[in-house]
């Protein structure tokens, strides 16, 4: 069959479509976004009526997928690594309910923090939930694993976690497709109480999940993805997880790797094969992109085995691996990376003409008399307000934290406290925090910088479009303290005085600077919608 040139993300999406997936659920987040976007643009998905609308956040997407699985259909959820923190409650409990239609969860981790606030390794979540994990070496593996994962999910009655990293998500290679499967028909779970996690039922199902562990282990042991390649030089054995195998292989070009190598790409880890490697080799080196997840297990608390990796300094403790780092760990060969001094950094900056800029300039002016250190921001393009020349914000922790941190600081006496949040982040997880503030009538000023889109991740639709005032009113913000303006330099004085007025108010106010993200001006549907809703 002819190969398609696909990103790792796209290979995952295509595999799900070919495996007969009926619905995809996701909230945007680099590097996972292209999975959903591929499905949204797929003709095949459209013809088969595959659900492909963005969800409000990762938790709602996970729960919708559990619902679709309940109804007997195959479904997939994808998110960036920190998204799984948001969806964790649903995710962990889905391991206890089990599935009806196949349920596949994709986590796109970001070692080296190319575009994230941490580099958490979500294999821990898979282990935490006691479910199988697949970790592809390359794009073809990613396709095959997702395709197989749906089968496996239904066979073992368990969600399956697919773990990729930025490098694979955003790298293209040829991928061969497999036979296209029909969608499942709607069927209710055979056991009508399967999804009712009352303690009495949950206890039984948890026991089943525990009993299934030996099956998962056996399956890993026999897996076509966990490959033991023998080598004649037993001075070293190498465990290579997922994409790290490529970096190892790169160092031996077209020659055979002299050491025994165990590829670990399906979890729970294949214990017997690891024991065999340990028994045969003098030392073992563990290569994994992310945390020393397998390394810690192999090393154990007693530290009796000669294990090299991220914990003993053979590899750096943080950051992404690459062929040179792997080579250094094996041969000791050093490498120097010297960028000519004349080269300067190009830090990312808000686009020329971005509405966030005008909002920040007005906010800075209005806050002068109160002094610094009282602006709690959030995650989005507007986080760049932390940098020169604005220096406008003092925090960015996790999505939604702006409003609740401002509330906490106000509770402590830092008044006025200001929150800055984007429209998409507000509907992701700012609304519940606003309710907390309304209930106590906390003296905070919430600025929802509304640009009609999820700008940071490339301009996806925002659930907030045309709904912000109604949402805020519904939550209980006084209508006279919901203030909307058009952020431009022409309106500067008006903006400053509105912000000043609301800073003086000793209760919850919401200020909405509203202007379309300049990067979305070519999006005809959005432009038409904004016109129809009379938002500009």
């Amino acid at each position, binding site marked *: 069959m002819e*190969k398609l*040139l696909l990103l790792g993300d796209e290979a995952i999406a295509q595999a799900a479509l070919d495996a007969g997936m009926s619905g995809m659920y996701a909230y945007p987040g680099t590097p996972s976004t292209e999975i959903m976007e591929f499905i949204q643009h797929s003709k095949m998905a459209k013809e088969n009526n595959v659900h492909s609308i963005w969800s409000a956040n990762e938790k709602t997407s996970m729960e919708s997928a559990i619902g679709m699985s309940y109804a007997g259909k195959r479904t997939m959820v994808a998110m960036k690594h920190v998204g799984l923190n948001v969806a964790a409650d649903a995710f962990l409990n889905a391991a206890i309910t089990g599935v009806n239609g196949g349920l596949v969860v994709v986590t796109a981790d970001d070692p080296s923090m*190319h575009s994230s606030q941490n580099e958490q390794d979500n294999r821990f979540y898979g282990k935490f939930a006691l479910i199988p994990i697949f970790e592809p070496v390359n794009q073809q593996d990613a396709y095959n694993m997702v395709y197989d994962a749906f089968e496996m999910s239904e066979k073992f009655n368990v969600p399956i976690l697919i773990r990729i990293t930025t490098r694979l998500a955003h790298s*293209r290679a040829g991928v061969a497709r497999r036979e296209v499967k029909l969608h499942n028909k709607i069927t209710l779970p055979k056991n009508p109480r399967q999804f009712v996690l009352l303690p009495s039922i949950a206890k039984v199902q948890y026991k089943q999940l525990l009993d299934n562990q030996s099956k998962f282990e056996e399956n890993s042991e026999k897996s076509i993805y966990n490959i033991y390649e023998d080598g004649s030089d037993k001075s070293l054995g190498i465990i290579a997880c997922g994409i790290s195998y490529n970096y190892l292989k790169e160092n031996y070009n077209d020659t055979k790797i002299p050491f025994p190598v165990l590829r670990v790409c399906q979890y729970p880890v294949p214990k017997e094969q690891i024991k065999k490697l340990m028994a045969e080799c003098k030392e073992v080196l563990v290569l994994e992109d992310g945390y020393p997840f397998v390394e810690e297990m192999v090393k154990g608390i007693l530290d009796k085995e000669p294990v090299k990796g991220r914990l003993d300094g053979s590899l750096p403790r943080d950051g992404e691996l*690459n062929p040179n780092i792997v080579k250094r760990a094996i041969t000791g060969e050093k*490498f120097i990376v010297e960028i000519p001094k*004349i*080269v300067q950094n190009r830090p*990312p900056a808000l*686009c020329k003409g971005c509405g966030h800029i005008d909002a920040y300039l007005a906010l800075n002016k209005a806050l002068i008399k109160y002094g610094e250190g009282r602006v709690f921001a959030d995650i989005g393009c507007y986080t760049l307000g932390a940098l020169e020349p604005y220096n406008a914000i003092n925090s960015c922790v996790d999505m939604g934290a702006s409003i609740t941190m401002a509330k906490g600081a106000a509770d402590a006496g830092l008044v006025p406290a200001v929150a800055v949040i984007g429209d998409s982040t507000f509907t992701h997880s700012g609304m519940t925090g606003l309710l907390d503030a309304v209930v106590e009538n906390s003296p905070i000023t919430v600025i929802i910088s509304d640009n009609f889109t999820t700008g940071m991740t490339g301009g996806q639709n925002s659930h907030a479009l045309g709904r912000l005032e109604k949402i805020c009113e519904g939550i209980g913000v006084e209508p006279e303290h919901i203030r909307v303006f058009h952020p431009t330099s022409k309106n500067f004085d008006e903006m400053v005085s509105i912000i000043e007025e609301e800073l003086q108010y000793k209760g919850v106010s919401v200020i909405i600077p509203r202007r379309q993200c300049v990067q979305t001006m070519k999006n005809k549907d959005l432009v038409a919608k904004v016109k129809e809703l009379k938002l500009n």
Partner: protein
Amino acid sequence: MKSDIILAGVGGQGIVSIAATIGTAALIEGLNLKQSEVHGMSQRGGDVSSNMRVSSNEIASDLIPYGQADLILSVEPMEALRYLPFLSESGWLVTNSEPFINIDNYPNLDELLEKIKSLPRNVIINADKIAAEVGSRRSSNIVMLGAASHFIDMDFDAFKKGITQIFAKKGTETVDVNIKALEAGRKFVEENYKF
């Protein structure tokens, strides 16, 4: 054949089209390919790069090891130097001479070009000017690809076919102007450099 290429520039400068054209050309030639790009903050003026690997053999790593790139193809002079640690001892650096200045501390252009000229194998080309001459300033990236194509061991016709496929949706006029840009870039290198 094996060609490890670093594509470099600033977000919005058309690296994606260059990568797509080389990728399509490689498929036409029946070669293996891996292409890794850095997405993310590109729309806000940050530097962007892509690791492009084409080979008649299997390719293992998505990332090119340091000191192993056969070619750095940059649409901007300062960005060309950012990836110097990747260039192999026999590799070529091919860059546009026209800077993209969106930072206050952008280096002195003459010093920058001097530094590039001090490298043993370099090609500096005013792709913006050549693109304007063939009728579309926006095809500057494809002029660069034309110039660099000399250093990639693939049939020149495959690049043309690649362009035809990549730009087909935008109409024959766009295809034609980009083919002209490709040819002009190639011609510049062949007329001005002796190998």
